[in-house]
């Protein structure tokens, strides 16, 4: 048997909340900032000079517990240079249906090339769309720098793995 007092108390709670500050936001018009250590969609970073940080070592793929990353390497030439070292990733794919956003790839990367970013807005209309290619993952080139592949003077880059800082 429902007591009338209880009903009124419920109605009062509802009425009261009309004057409280809402906890939800109007997504997608309004977006909440993510935490500093948020792990969202990956990005492949570049140096300031536009060259790609990734050297195609596939250690991210080796570290990946979900087997979501596929890397294939090729050799740089001074005519067509993608990264400062001898080798670059000619294929770099992440399957975001598999990815568990653990960030092991980021830990494994010797050149800090693969970084989990802020983007969490991932939706696909079919499974193959969930595979992001190298071109999709690479961050845009800085306006002052040239896109890859670059043509450089012979002997400009002779180290297999560049120092961690930007080479120049």
């Amino acid at each position, binding site marked *: 048997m429902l007591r009338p007092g209880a009903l009124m108390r419920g109605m009062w709670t509802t009425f009261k909340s009309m004057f409280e500050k809402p906890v939800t936001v109007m997504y997608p018009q309004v977006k909440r900032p993510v935490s500093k250590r948020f792990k969202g969609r990956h990005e492949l970073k570049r140096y300031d000079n536009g060259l790609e940080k990734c050297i195609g*070592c596939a250690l991210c793929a080796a570290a990946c517990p979900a087997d979501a990353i596929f890397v*294939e390497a090729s050799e740089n030439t001074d005519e067509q240079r993608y990264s400062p070292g001898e080798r670059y990733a*000619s*294929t770099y794919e992440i399957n975001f249906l598999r990815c568990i956003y653990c960030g092991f790839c980021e830990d494994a990367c010797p050149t800090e090339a693969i970084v989990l970013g802020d983007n969490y807005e991932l939706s696909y209309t079919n499974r193959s769309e969930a595979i992001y290619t190298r071109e999709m993952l690479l961050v845009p080139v800085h306006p002052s720098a040239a896109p890859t592949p670059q043509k450089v003077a012979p002997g400009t880059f002779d180290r297999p*793995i560049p120092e961690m800082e930007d080479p120049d």
Partner: protein
Amino acid sequence: MSELVKNEAAQNMVTLTIDDHTMSVPEGTLVVDAARSIGLDIPVFCYHPKMEPVGMCRMCLVEIGTPMRDRTTSEPILEDDGSPKIQFFPNLMTGCTFRASEGMVVRGYTEKVTAARKEVLEFLLTSHPLDCPTCDKGGECPLQNLTMQFGDGESRFIYDEKMHSAKHVALGDLIFLDRERCIQCARCTRFQDEIVDDQVIGFSNRGRALEIVTFSDPGFDSYWSGNTTDICPVGALTTADFRFGARPWEMNASASICNHCAVGCNLTFNTRREVKSGGEKIIKRVMPRQNEAVNEIWICDKGRFAYHFTASDQRLNQPLIRKDGKLVPSSWELALDLVTSRFKNAGENLVTLAGGRLSNEDLFNLAELSAHLGGDALLYSDMAGGDLVSRLGVGEGTNFSDMGPETAILVVACNLEEEAPLWWLRIKQAAERGAKVIVANPRKTKLDRSAIHNLRYEYGQEAGLVTALLSAISPKQPKSPAFVNKLAKDKEVKAAAKALSEAENTVILFGSEGTSYAASAALAQACANLLIASGHIGRPNNGLIGVWDKGNAQGAWDMGLRPSEDLDAALKTSQAVYISAADPAGDSKQYASALKKADFVVVQELYMTATAELADVVLPAQAFTEREGTYTSGERRVQRFYPAVPSLPDLLPDFGITAEIAGRLGLELEKTAPASVMLQIAEVVPDYAELTYQKLAKVEKQFPLIGREDVYYGGTSYQNSQGLGVQLKPAAQNGDSPVLVITELPEVKLSGEELLAVPVTRLLDLGNTVTPSEVLVTRLAKPHVALHPQDAEKLGVEWGSKVKLILNGSTQTVLVEFDNSMPHGVVLVPRSLGIPIISPTPATIKVL
């Protein structure tokens, strides 16, 4: 160590203690090997079980002690508890140079040793670039592994002060050197020097500045260069072929057998699915697989690099039928129905011609189909004697590694390093152990360096020479031609004959240097006679080996196929020709015109060869990398290969296609499971009785122990986990007692002005399965001929110049090379370079 362990009974055994494990090993066993034999790992870099120890890297430092003896009485001094008192060397000793002795005590994991290892590693890494992420060796690198296991994790040296040197030095076109990564262990230079006798790489300078150099032309000019990348304990030597190809852990491994020559080296194909190849799974590299009875842990560069043919985009991928003079795509049904109806019509006028690179299963089904119709099953080969090899071949249990002073090895009409590189290597090593190697060849070959007798004869006299050897042993010979009698009186021939007959074991290898089919038949028979007369048959390490031109030629003989004495006529008179894995039209214009005359030609192939161009029906087949099967080597070892990559869609294996045709002709043959074909072979072919795929897949422990888990020992060769194969017993071992058959010796006659063109073999030729490997392009022989320098002078041609060669009615422009060890009046024409040569033929050379 292999010999040491195998001959335990014959050796003095000593007892030593390593880290509280007491063991008995043959006297003279190195401490590292002794430890390894019971699973204790003393880390090494420069030491390699196949080479002499040098103690250069200091990684194997251990504490070694020996029992103390009283100096006056030489009685052992005992501790209070009665155990012998051990005196340790004041310094750490290198375990790789120290040999086990009675009562020795080794400590491999004391504080002192562990500290020393840390320091050695720290020191080796002072100049190492630590570029493991981009290094092709990363993941299977001894330096990486040992640093993880024994290293300190930190260095007192400053990273920025690392010495930098050249990182991408091409030692020739196949091998790259990274000077920064080199730890100066000398495994590569020692391999080239000790094992393959090609001193084409060496150390230059000293200390920090020491570097590997090559001064040969072309750089690193050796058929064995790829092996140095296997045994390099760091990423200093890597192949151009695999450069940045994949990380080692990403690839799958499939066991296989090399089919480029008759040795049958055990291989592992490393495969990976890749975007560059359109998402297909492809072979990324070829690695040796250990089989101490076949190829040990080595393979030649042809086996290592000439594998690209299976992934070539020139592969046939659908059946073709000739319509209005043109080959047009067709369905399998249509093509097979057409073939069936024509074969039925042809009946016993069907000629089946198969190449020696087909598997036993393919050849068996071909032979069965041919027998069903009553036609001829022919092997496309210019060599004879496979039937003799199956009767008098080497006995079960033959292993070149076991051969020593009690064995004589005759190699006749064969440039062994070119025709079967691994046999050259193993016979050279047998010679180093004391085996008496006798080389009979008209010109110098690399094996001459290992021979105690070098017998020279004129091209065409090979059978005569062997007969001369025979008559030196048993004087009761029927009348021989004058040249044989003359050869028999030669001092060197007599000495060689003595060595052959007196040896406890004798093996004869016959090749195809300068032989026609008829000459080959005579040679094989002469070799057989020699073995029968001297009683060297039916036992292990005795018998006849054919250095076949193709990987499974012996298997083809065993399956009942025979080369034709007159292929030209056979093709011309046939009503239907069924050619599989052979390209007669590409080899000779004569065969091409014969095929044009044939009524109906079916070609089962991988590519659009010259022969396929002439076909009425072309049936595409799977490559051996896409399927299972077995090959029989020249030593009659049946070995299994496994599928490495998926087949192109809609293709069948050769035996499957044959079975499809046979099925339509009312003959049930196995079309899907090669293991079932083997069961049928076992029923029909007596020598193969009881052979099953399970038996072929058996493995046993091999010495030296190498393995992927501890790559620091044998390098990156694969351990054998998928089968050592089975060596067949020759009939002679099953009680067959053959008798001498004296055949007439062929002779070649020339008119005055002409030169005699003789076919010889080059390893890196322009064969269909070699040329698709781009990495080898600069190493492949160009169309050339070789002349004696004096003949060349007479003709007025210089080294490297172009001349016109008129041969078998065709004219061709070729380069000229010199060979001052060859006879006069002869021009050497390598096979498979596009110059039509099948047998010794008169030829004319015209200066351009």
